[in-house]
């Protein structure tokens, strides 16, 4: 559950990074601000049960990967194999972190 919060937070991060760059109307800016609030809210909530430093690294990493992929798919930014390689490296790090991190779910306090 807590990791899911981090992943959704990163998804909203991608939305607001795109928004900061491309928003040009009242609604687009409104959506950008809402995305910032939602992503930070989820980030903070995830930090309640998971180590904050770990969570923030995953949040930043996924947000960056998502933004690069969105740039290639929707905003005509150049496709490069080096980008895909770095994203693979990044995802490997995230999977590794998830495996070594204990999730302190409510009710199962040690």
């Amino acid at each position, binding site marked *: 559950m807590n990791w899911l919060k981090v992943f959704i937070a990163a998804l909203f991060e991608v939305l607001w990074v795109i928004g900061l760059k491309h928003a040009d109307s009242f609604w687009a800016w409104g959506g950008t601000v809402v995305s910032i609030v939602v992503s930070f809210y989820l980030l903070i909530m995830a930090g309640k049960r998971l180590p904050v430093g770990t969570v923030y690294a995953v949040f*930043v990493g996924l947000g960056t990967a998502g933004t690069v992929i969105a740039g290639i798919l929707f905003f005509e930014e150049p496709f490069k194999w080096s980008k895909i390689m770095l994203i693979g490296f990044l995802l490997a790090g995230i999977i590794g972190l998830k495996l070594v991190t204990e999730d302190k779910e409510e009710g199962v306090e040690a």
Partner: protein
Amino acid sequence: MAWLSLILAGLCEMLGVLMINRVHKHRNWQSLALLVMAFGASFLFLALAMETLPMSTAYAIWTGIGASGGAIMGMFLYGEPKDLKRIVFIGMILGAAVGLKLIS
């Protein structure tokens, strides 16, 4: 000046990450205000740095300082686990993120 703002932006981000920890320890409005101020100042300094520095460079360095600093400080100040595997994985993620920002 731009580099100074960039470093300040990174330090404020690091502070923001620490404030997330603080919010869970001390649940009050002061903690929340500090968190919002830290990230707010971080974005402000980043925007200032981006006026002169290339966006990708600025963004990469900002992330590098903020997220790695946040992780290191969390380990020392808030007792977050500091096993070697975790440090290697965080290093991989942040290294890749900084690389992506530099080439994008």
